[in-house]
């Protein structure tokens, strides 16, 4: 039980705005770790710092004990951190299969001159990528749509495809930004089941942002609560549920200003 991901005193400032202040976070290998907090608490910013879209103003992000903050997002992704986005970011004009292949390509090794003259190694890698990604889509129940345009899929399938695409990177840590956004409670229930399958089948560690309390409380092993860029509570779902600071952040102070 060691920390797979460690966020150490990370501060992220945009001009005068402090989006994340002294954030500390430890994600244990094998856990599903939830981040909750009111809107604007800095959850997505934290994700963007972890995945390298932003370089933190101060502090470090460590993955498997190595400092990764400051590396390029693509390098971090290839190193084993995959993510989904709050507003789905698929390659909408491409086929479902190509969406997954682009992520899978991260581990292909042939060179571009090699590709241009069709070296046997490049051909083999292409064939392998098609087979591997078709298998992956099969697991995610998307294989029938493999040659459809990703943007034409129904919303739920687009969410699933985004997760499938992230898994094609073969990550050891999966970051999910509001996977239940836009889902009703029946769909959310299904999602919990799906996430459980995902965790068991790929034995992937998860860090997820979610507003849906039921999902977080039933699915996560550990929860971090953010408010105004700061960690205000951390612990098991039960500990967090009963923490007065959490209740205050969500419901407002008892003495009634706001």
């Amino acid at each position: 039980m060691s920390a797979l991901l460690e966020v150490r005193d990370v501060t992220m400032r945009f001009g005068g705005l402090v989006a994340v202040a002294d954030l500390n976070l430890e994600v244990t290998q094998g856990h599903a770790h939830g981040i909750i907090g009111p809107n604007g608490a800095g959850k997505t910013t934290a994700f963007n710092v972890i995945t390298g879209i932003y370089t933190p103003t101060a502090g470090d992000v460590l993955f498997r004990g190595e400092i990764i903050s400051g590396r390029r997002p693509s390098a971090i992704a290839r190193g084993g951190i995959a993510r989904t986005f709050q507003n789905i970011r698929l390659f909408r004009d491409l086929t479902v299969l190509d969406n997954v292949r682009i992520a899978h390509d991260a581990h292909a090794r042939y060179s571009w001159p090699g590709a241009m003259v069709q070296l046997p190694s490049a051909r083999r890698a292409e064939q392998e990528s098609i087979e591997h990604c078709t298998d992956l889509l099969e697991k995610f129940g998307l294989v029938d749509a493999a040659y459809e345009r990703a943007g034409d899929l129904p919303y739920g399938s687009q969410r699933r495809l985004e997760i499938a695409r992230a898994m094609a990177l073969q990550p050891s840590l999966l970051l999910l930004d509001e996977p239940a956004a836009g889902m009703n409670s029946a769909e959310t229930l299904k999602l919990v089941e799906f996430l459980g399958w995902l965790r068991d089948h790929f034995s992937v560690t998860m860090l997820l942002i979610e507003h849906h309390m039921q999902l977080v409380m039933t699915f996560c092993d550990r929860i971090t609560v953010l408010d105004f860029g700061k960690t205000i509570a951390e612990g098991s779902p039960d500990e967090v549920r009963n923490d007065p600071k959490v209740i205050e952040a969500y419901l407002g102070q008892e003495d009634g200003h706001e």
Partner: protein
Amino acid sequence: MMRWFKQPPPRGVLLALLAAGLAACFAIEQFGLVDDYVRFVLITLGINIILCVSLNLVNGWMGEFSVGHAGFMALGAYLSACVSVKWLGWGDPLWMFPLAVMAGGLLAGAVGLLLGLLSFKTRGDYLAIITLAFLMIVKSGIENIPYVGGPRGFLGIGNHTTLLWTAVWTVLTLWAIRNLVYSRFGRGIVAVREDEIAANAMGVDTRKAKLAAFVVSSFFGGVAGALFAHQLQFINPGVFDIVKSTEILVMVYLGGIGSLGGSILGAAAFTILAQVLQPLGTWRMVILPLILVLLMLFRPRGIMGMREFPWFVPRREFPAKEDKK
């Protein structure tokens, strides 16, 4: 890349057609089967296809906007002319000409690398302005080099661009770019266009993808320039101006972005239109842009935008046939 999911051609058909086409080009050259005008138009068509498909890599597949393609043409044209006239003028065109074309392409590709590096920092309108500046630098630079004739132009280039050489280079270009587009780099290039943030998050080395696109695109732009120089036998810096770039842009957006078939179609339509409209003189340059305006209004992605003739798609990209049941 929406595709027409019809079947690829039976194995060997494409190769047989290619061989027949090349044989026909050879026969035309050997026995003078067509008159000089038709031959000239056919060679122009080949050069235009190379220009169109190579610019399409950057402007179509990658979704950038470069207006500097005529600059790469100029680099390829002038360096190849230096090789074939001044440096290796004594050589047999049979080996000397391909060498000159390669040299032109390589110089253009090397300069394309620089432009690719700039594309890390700048995108969209800003990159368009940089490529415009690049075009002006190339043109003015050549005008100030007396060695290649300065503003008067480069005279006495051998007529080495045969129909056969043009066909060979056109096929080579289409083949290489097809292979690139249907590889991890091609998908990376398209991913940059679709969503650069997501592409990065999915491990696509967007820098490498951009560099590959710019280098390959400018290399073939230089090749086309070399063929162009040895077709006209006389080049001057004024030929490689923004109008030339615009012509290539018209071909790309007419035929369709992100499509090999569209590039051929666009180049063909443009080449034929340019000939048909010849009697109109300068009015030609009113009608061609007008077509572009209408196109942008009614079919902004071009005739074949983001679609492909199934014959240009590698066999492996088609859904596997249902064997079971």
